[in-house]
């Protein structure tokens, strides 16, 4: 049996680890709240935009062209991977990295050139380790992505798309479905799906200024920007949730170990005392 002192020291050091993980849990919980609020704040905009595009598509009679809708034969694709700069958040980063690798293989299997854009230090290291070439990397987007920061990235991608350098754009990120469910997903950003011209609930006979087609041409790029922004927001919320869960589990496990170690310490202390006592009694008996 181990020395009681050594066991006590171990229990102490695990205690201080538990303190750290508990603090990280609390920070992640607070950050989660903020990130969640931001993701929710974007929702009215998304809903309105989707509704408006539907309205306009039905007004335009589903008969319009736009470069962003055009499906061209794909020679080069671009994939944006979004993860975090920091670790200690369970499987969050590796899930994204694995999906990026899988998607890369699938895209390359079609005989298509691929550029990978990675956001987040963790993803960058993991992809380098898996020997995937990264065309661009970003580490400046933290847990509060602003529309402007994300827009700068989207702008460049849309420009390259407009020049015909790339024909398809994907984004890999962790979708926030609920507080207990987040999963890494790969979504197609460009070309856009042609908005369905189905009859949406509104029966207003809108005036259009200018024409419905031109408004649609203004809205479609916005919906692309929004899609990417939403991906970054979701990734930020998912990161904090993942960290919150990971740190909660770590704290619980640490407390469990401390309990076991304390028991072990008490037992070994008792054994030691018993041994010493029996030695003394044995010694005394030998003297008689």
């Amino acid at each position, binding site marked *: 049996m181990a020395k009681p002192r050594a066991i006590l020291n171990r229990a102490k050091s695990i205690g201080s680890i538990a303190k750290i993980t508990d603090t990280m849990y609390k920070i992640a919980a607070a950050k989660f709240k903020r990130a969640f609020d931001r993701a929710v704040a974007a929702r009215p905009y998304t809903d309105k935009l989707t509704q408006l595009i539907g309205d306009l598509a039905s007004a335009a009679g589903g008969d319009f062209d736009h470069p962003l809708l055009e499906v061209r034969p794909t020679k080069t694709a671009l994939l944006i991977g979004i993860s975090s700069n920091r670790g200690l958040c369970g499987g969050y980063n590796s899930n994204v990295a694995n999906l990026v690798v899988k998607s890369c293989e699938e895209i390359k299997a079609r005989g298509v050139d691929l550029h990978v854009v990675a956001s987040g230090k963790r993803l960058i290291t993991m992809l380098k380790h898996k020997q995937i070439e990264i065309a661009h990397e970003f580490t400046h987007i933290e847990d509060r992505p602003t529309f402007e920061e994300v827009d700068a990235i989207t702008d460049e991608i849309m420009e390259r798309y407009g020049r015909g350098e790339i024909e398809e754009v994907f984004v890999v990120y962790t979708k926030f479905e609920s507080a207990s469910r987040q999963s890494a997903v790969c979504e197609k950003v460009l070309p856009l799906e042609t908005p369905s011209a189905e009859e949406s609930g*509104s029966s207003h006979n809108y*005036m259009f200024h200018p024409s419905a087609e031109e408004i649609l041409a203004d809205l479609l790029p916005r919906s692309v*920007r929004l899609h990417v922004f939403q991906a970054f927001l979701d990734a930020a919320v998912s990161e904090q949730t993942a960290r919150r869960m990971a740190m909660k589990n770590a704290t619980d496990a640490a407390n469990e170990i401390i309990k076991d170690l304390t028991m072990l310490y008490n037992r070994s202390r008792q054994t030691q005392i018993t041994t010493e006592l029996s030695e003394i009694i044995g010694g005394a008996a030998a003297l008689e």
Partner: protein
Amino acid sequence: MADRTLTVSVVTPEGAAYEGQALSVVAPAFDGEMAFYPMHAPLVGVLGYGELRVTRTDNQTEHFYLAGGVVQVANDEVTILAESVVPAPDVDDGEARKMLDDALATQAVGEIELDARQAQMDDARARIRIAERSKTRREPTAREILEQPVE
């Protein structure tokens, strides 16, 4: 008519910039300003760079800088979708001047670049205009009110 008001919501991807009742809204359409009063016909329009003015029910007017977007009007509800909305007093005209100089200094080739340059110039000019207007705008002093010619 007098008791009718508009329900205004100005939403951006980062949240709502303004929400509430209003007497009127003046929005910068892509080709000039557009005003909306209660009972406006349903309309969807593209907005450009410029000033958004919302006159609240207490007759106070709020000024914003708006960088393009879309306005939708129906049933006395005005919804503005914009990517960036800044309250007029927060517009930084120094930065805008730099932006304008940058735009003027760039050599644009081709339609796409020319459009982008024009957009940057329009944006910068609108920002400067709003910042300047917002600086000179203030409540009239008591003396000014007293000295106003009586009609």
